[in-house]
């Protein structure tokens, strides 16, 4: 009997992802359903939603039903060697239609002394996971280092950065252009920003479009970051399924470097998101880099054989 026919979409994908994680040397991580609320109160901006289910434990401690997995794993990192962990956990978050719901989430975290190899490994694993969900997938990749260098080079204020980030994440070139003009930002900055917002292309094409603009703007590290992404043979094997898209923009207070979102045909939202979050580790007083991603099993399109 083929047991896969009895499985729900979430179950089938969950098993298949587990095989992918193990093949790349990730080890299982199990955790309690509860975590001290204080961890989330101190890192509210990292959470998908600020609303958390809390209760008072038998010892009087204020606890929470986990809304997130990464924070717990990062908190418990022992700070010594490279750790590659995967999980399949239930988290509790507000649903779009109101009220809390249980969400099955699968994912990986890689923590410790990170190099380009580990970054490439996790990005390639993300693409593999998407391919298990559907043949028709896109992994949108960006690098926050490009944005940080751009902001720093052209001396933009924090308020302006926040306004521009809102435009970048929604591909709102009209509003970005208006802000640039209103704030008197240079033509070079404005042109580059608008081009970045409008770019959504396979990595090598994005590099060819953007490198000349990076050189003109004098942001060399941005050029290196994009070139590093393009140099990866593992990512190149996925061809046009991996694209550079500047609108991938998670919270800059926690994320840095490579960030990505995964989409599959038939799903109305991203089904995977992740990136490098050294800054979160720093906030938790961990002297280590970290990169990971989560697959949102509640967002998968309905099962129709191979999606």
């Amino acid at each position: 009997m083929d047991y896969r026919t009895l499985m729900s979409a979430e179950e089938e994908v969950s098993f298949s992802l587990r095989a992918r994680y193990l093949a790349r040397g990730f080890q299982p991580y199990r955790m309690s359903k509860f975590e001290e609320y204080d961890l989330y109160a101190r890192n509210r901006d990292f959470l998908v939603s600020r609303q958390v289910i809390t209760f008072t434990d038998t010892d009087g401690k204020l606890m929470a039903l986990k809304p997130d997995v990464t924070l717990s794993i990062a908190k418990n990192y022992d700070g010594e060697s490279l750790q590659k962990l995967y999980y399949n956990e239930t988290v509790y978050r507000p649903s779009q239609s109101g009220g809390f719901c249980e969400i099955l989430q699968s994912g990986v975290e890689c923590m410790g002394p990170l190099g380009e190899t580990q970054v490439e490994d996790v990005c390639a694993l993300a693409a593999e996971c998407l391919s298990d969900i559907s043949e028709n997938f896109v992994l949108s990749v960006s690098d926050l280092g490009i944005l940080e260098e751009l902001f720093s080079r052209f001396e933009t204020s924090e308020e302006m950065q926040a306004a521009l980030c809102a435009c970048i994440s929604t591909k709102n070139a009209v509003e970005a252009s208006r802000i640039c003009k209103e704030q008197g930002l240079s033509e070079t900055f404005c042109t580059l920003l608008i081009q970045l917002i409008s770019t959504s292309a396979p990595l090598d094409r994005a590099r060819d479009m953007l490198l000349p603009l990076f050189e003109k703007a004098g942001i060399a590290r941005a050029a290196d970051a994009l070139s590093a992404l393009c140099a990866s043979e593992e990512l190149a094997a996925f061809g046009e399924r991996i694209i550079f898209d500047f609108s991938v923009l998670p919270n800059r207070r926690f994320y840095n470097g490579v960030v990505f979102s995964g989409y599959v045909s038939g799903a109305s939202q991203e089904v995977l998101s992740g990136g490098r979050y050294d800054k979160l580790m720093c906030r938790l007083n961990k002297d280590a880099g970290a990169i990971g991603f989560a697959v949102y099993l509640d967002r998968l399109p309905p099962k129709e054989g191979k999606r």
Partner: protein
Amino acid sequence: MSDFLNIALPKGRLGEKVYGMFARAGFSCDEILRESRKLIFEDAQNRVRYFWVKPSDVPIYVERGAADIGVAGRDILLEYAPNVYELCDLGVGRCRMAVAARRGFTDDNARTLRVATKFVSIAKAHYAKKCRDIDIVHLNGSIELAPILGMTDVIVDIVETGTTLKENDLEVVETILPISARLIANKAVYQFKKSEIDRLSCALIAELAEREQA
């Protein structure tokens, strides 16, 4: 995923005007112009499907993926902040979000300002930037009545020609921001229908540029 482009248009004059722009861009659907109680209109040749939606609901349809793209006013996008791409300004439905009050009103900074509005988020953000303490009265229609009856000091509302304000002895005391209709797209769908959506977006931008030059 259907290879049709699913488009949510706002019911009313704005939606009809926008449909004309979409049709000129090559996304016509003649069925939509016929008198009918149908809700969904399809053109198999152009691979496009339209539906008329309450204007404030367009972002919901797009965010949830029921529509691939849609047209919504900047006021609705700012108020509800849907998780969508805002791809271009259609240059129609132009008006402004403004603070209005009874003629001759002056703001007494010593006390809490009472504000009537349908746009609670926009009003809160505007006054937060000024560090102004406000008391919001959330109304759903005939907002102009509030200061006339003394219920509030000011209103935050959309102003087009200003005729309604003038006829009720109200005046604009401050413009918050300009408003116009925007093309929005579902972020996930955009990854797979980029070429059609970009083709439409470019055609709309070109038409706007032509209109502004003329």
